[in-house]
């Protein structure tokens, strides 16, 4: 398999994952503006921050308004992380690795692009947003489903999966880091109405507000929320779950190629931190410091995979 093909698959799935994550973030942002009395456009500050585009946004827009923020996150192609850009780049990568994809996977990707390009061609009306966000999630789900149902479980599959989970881990850790201060135990053990609201918004950004209730008996507690998103291996968007998947896919590659690389050590080390860590230790050491360190190690792993499997040279 070509290094460029591995690179194309890795980024194709990173972009598809990112598109879906951005849609979730916008969804959570909309929810805030609907349910909170006295909410303001300033609430979108955190959403842009979680999407990692706060600075880029202010280069294009002088003011922060809900409409501009939503437009920037969903359809502005000058924003490399907008849903439209992600779908465009995801599909470009898919075209590049067309021979590595099953017809179903390619068609699901191509149709997602055709559909969203048409839907995002014009300015968005607030009334269209709920449906649009559903369509984005639905389209990304179809790509993932076609991929799972039709691709051979070989190195192609492994690189695609690694891309998905590196991106997801990055996304979850960013969401947490932007709001880490509302999770600090010093604020309060049992939340005030405002805390509850903030916590729910975090859970919503990873579509986990329902599942949280099942796992922790409904009660919002800051430590539990952090635990859920960082260490709970059953939670499919938690850092621990992402690293279970990353290490198992890297291990398959090591078996197939009969070669272990630096990336394997790095991934195993991160996984073991997440497996053995307890949320109280993490809180004691500093949640923000922990998350910062995680984001940088996650990036380091991505760079090691890129180099070790000759994505570019």
């Amino acid at each position, binding site marked *: 398999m*070509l290094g460029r093909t*591995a690179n194309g698959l890795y980024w194709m799935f990173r972009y598809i994952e990112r598109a879906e994550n951005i849609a979730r973030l916008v969804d959570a942002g909309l929810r805030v503006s609907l349910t909170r009395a006295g909410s303001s456009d300033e609430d979108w500050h955190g959403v842009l921050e979680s999407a990692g585009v706060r600075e880029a946004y202010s280069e294009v827009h002088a003011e922060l308004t809900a409409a501009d923020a939503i437009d920037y996150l969903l359809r502005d192609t000058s924003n490399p992380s907008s849903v439209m850009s992600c779908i465009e780049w995801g599909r470009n990568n898919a075209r590049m690795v067309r021979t590595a994809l099953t017809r179903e996977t*390619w068609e699901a990707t*191509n149709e997602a692009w055709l559909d969203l390009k048409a839907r995002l061609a014009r300015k968005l009306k607030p009334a269209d947003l709920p449906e649009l966000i559903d369509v984005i999630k639905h389209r990304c789900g179809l790509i993932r489903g076609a991929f799972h149902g039709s691709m051979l479980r070989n190195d192609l599959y492994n690189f695609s999966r690694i891309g998905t989970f590196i991106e997801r881990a990055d996304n979850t850790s960013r969401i947490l880091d932007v709001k880490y201060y509302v999770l600090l135990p010093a604020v309060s053990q049992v939340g005030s109405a405002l805390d509850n609201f903030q916590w729910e918004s975090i859970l919503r950004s990873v579509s986990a507000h329902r599942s949280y209730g099942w796992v922790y008996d409904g009660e919002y507690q800051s430590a539990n929320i952090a635990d859920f998103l960082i260490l709970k291996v059953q939670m499919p968007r938690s850092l621990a779950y992402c690293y279970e998947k990353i290490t198992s896919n890297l291990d398959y590659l090591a078996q197939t190629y009969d*070669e272990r690389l630096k990336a394997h050590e790095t991934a195993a080390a991160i996984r073991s931190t997440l497996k053995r860590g307890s949320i109280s230790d993490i809180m004691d050491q500093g949640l923000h410091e922990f998350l910062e360190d995680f984001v940088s190690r996650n990036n380091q792993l991505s760079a090691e995979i890129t180099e070790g*499997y000759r994505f570019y040279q």
Partner: protein
Amino acid sequence: MLTADNNPRPPYKTYHEWYASQDAAHLIRKTQDAENIFRKTGITFAVYGHADSSEKLIPFDIIPRIISAREWRKLAQGIEQRVLALNAFLDDIYHKQEIIKAGRIPRELIERNVAFLPEMIGFKPPGGVYTHIVGTDIVRTGEDQFYVLEDNARTPSGVSYMLENRETMMQMFPELFTLNKVQRVEDYPRLLRQSLASLAPPGCKGKPRVAVLTPGIFNSAYYEHSFLADQMGVELVEGADLRVIDGRVKMRTTRGYEAIDVLYRRVDDDFLDPLTFRADSALGIPGIMDVYRAGNITIANAPGTGISDDKAIYSYMPEIVEFYTGRKALLENVPTWRCSEPDSLKYVLEHIEELVIKEVHGSGGYGMLVGPTATKKERTEFAEKLAAKPANYIAQPTLALSTVPIFVNKGIAPRHVDLRPYVLVSDKVKIIPGGLTRVALKQGSLVVNSSQGGGTKDTWVLED
């Protein structure tokens, strides 16, 4: 489809009966279905110079073009003769140059031609084959009357449309394929791979490793490149994936560099090797020509084949065929005026409203003038360009092309078409029974190029 007395021509008889039994609304819906299939699959091409419409569909017509087995046999014989002559010509031009010595072709026409590559002089490609894949453009003017418009001997494109058009027809109208016995085209990718592998360099041990070289996803024919690689089950590579290491061309895989034996390149000669040709090419592989000349890789088609399908050479094809095969050409050439010759230039300028004038090095329907349909202003402007650089142009009469039926909302309408059958050359010549039929969708138009709004249709060669 119909003869002068309004009866269906014999190959169309079964189809015509079926068509008569169909409901028009149903067929209109089918046309829409076909478009959806193409769009969904991403069977697109790019038109250069259209920024916002970077990917386009080629319109597909649902009425097949049908050719009888007898007519096809005649055509195939003519094509085979022509393709063999092309290879003999290339071998001669790059070795003994007997055709020049015999005074049949002017020396400067070859040696001053940009498509002539001095790097190929004295070099024999593996198996002695220059043109592994040829797509000969043919028009029909009447029963058994075929003219060759162009011999595409560099990198003929469009074969993916031949295959996808057939696939689409079989999906939409399966019953037609039980009513008619249509010869298969589906074997093309397998035959292509076999043919390429059989011409691996002599030093290649074991199963030859084949790859398709593409300029990348922004190339107009990218869809076809990925389609062919996928159908053959070989890697689709770009220049940046390849590197010359230890005298071999190798591709960068996730496990390291692995050697390639046969490269089906869809990159022009100019861009193939920045060390030998255009130094600014980012699409090629530095040093590949050295590997090639050392006999360690097969490049298909061979560099320098462009000299054989050059529009200036085209007018000599009857002589070329006769010179190398010892027989008259079975397929006719369209009479051609070489504007480089003063008498011809004078004639062309005087008859500009009757002629089609083409750039010698142009392709894809760009830079040509169709005299009869051009405006007066277009003709005057073109005449100025022509007079300034006559050697850049050739002119041909517009032929009384036969038409085939296409499906329009009001039913059936006649349109002009051409036909590009695909030919594979190894130790034998294989012609796929069928090809790409391109249709001029505008009424009365003679230009079939997809970049100029032409469409395509499935092409059936019936069994006996």
